[in-house]
């Protein structure tokens, strides 16, 4: 099964989504990412028990922060799937890509370009 997902998505591998901290997501936005989504295992199936649950809470925190500073909380999203679901992986990628294209570029990037 060779599935295509949008080529503008950069995948960062982590051992568990529990490793993904608020600061990692913020730094991605600070460096100009237009959107960030975290794809973890199904809830209840985390090999480390609660890694994906922590990730979800952190994604929610980042969402609130982005809303507060007018960057847009919708730019960050948590998804869950099991490791055999390649099709869902591409669906998430397409869904997120469409959402971000609709929202437009990260306003930080525009502001930074202007300042430069």
């Amino acid at each position: 099964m060779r599935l295509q997902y949008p080529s503008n998505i950069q995948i960062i591998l982590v051992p568990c989504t529990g490793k993904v901290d608020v600061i990692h997501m913020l730094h991605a936005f600070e460096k100009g990412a237009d959107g960030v989504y975290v794809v973890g295992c199904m809830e209840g199936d985390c090999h480390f028990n609660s890694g994906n649950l922590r990730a979800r809470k952190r994604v929610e925190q980042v969402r609130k922060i982005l809303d507060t500073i007018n960057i847009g909380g919708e730019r960050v999203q948590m998804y869950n799937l099991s490791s055999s679901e390649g099709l869902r992986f591409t669906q998430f990628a397409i869904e997120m890509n469409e959402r971000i294209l609709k929202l437009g570029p990260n306003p930080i990037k525009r502001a930074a370009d202007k300042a430069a």
Partner: protein
Amino acid sequence: MIVADRKPVEEIIEEVKDHDKILILGCNECVTVCEAGGKKEVAVLASVLRMHFLNQGQTVRIDERTLQRQCDHEYLEEVRDIIDQYNAVVSLACGVGVQFMAEKYHATPVYPGVNTVFMGVTEERGLWTERCQGCGECILARTGGICPISRCAKRVLNGPCGGSTKGSCEIHKDVVCAWQLIVERLKALDRFDDYEKLSALKDWSTDRAGGPRKVVREDLQDESKDT
């Protein structure tokens, strides 16, 4: 430890909005343990502020630094050589650190980045509860190691009061009655007779009623300063 909670980012933005060179200063002690003002929280706040100001079209320099402590001269001295580069500091230390920082560096405004809440324990990650109010005269020997000053809503010294119901305090069913705990603990220690001994009136002059407090230990003080 001293337990603090994060301040809403909107409030911090309001504090520093007129400055363009800001140092976010964390503390490696209590506020790191309660995840309110350590290196990690410094990084998050700095990142949020950088993005906010950029988004507003403002050029603001935001730097990060975390000291071992902000309640001791020697650690605060570590920023002496850089402090003039900033026109504001947001200290994520407890209120003690914020004040000591402000006392030391008169020319730079220091803003609090956390709300300092109490002295307490980590019951579990993400849950901290109060244990001590620093009343200045510890009575824990008499109360089975459970403090009615910090844990009883009325600071009752010969409790429980009439509001104690099934182990809960009358202020809320989720608040454990400290005196219920004391009674159970004295029983478990086979010291229930002690419960019958009435506590005398407490001398509150060692608490805040006596004004700001200090501890003086002449045996530890530097002799050379006396002469």
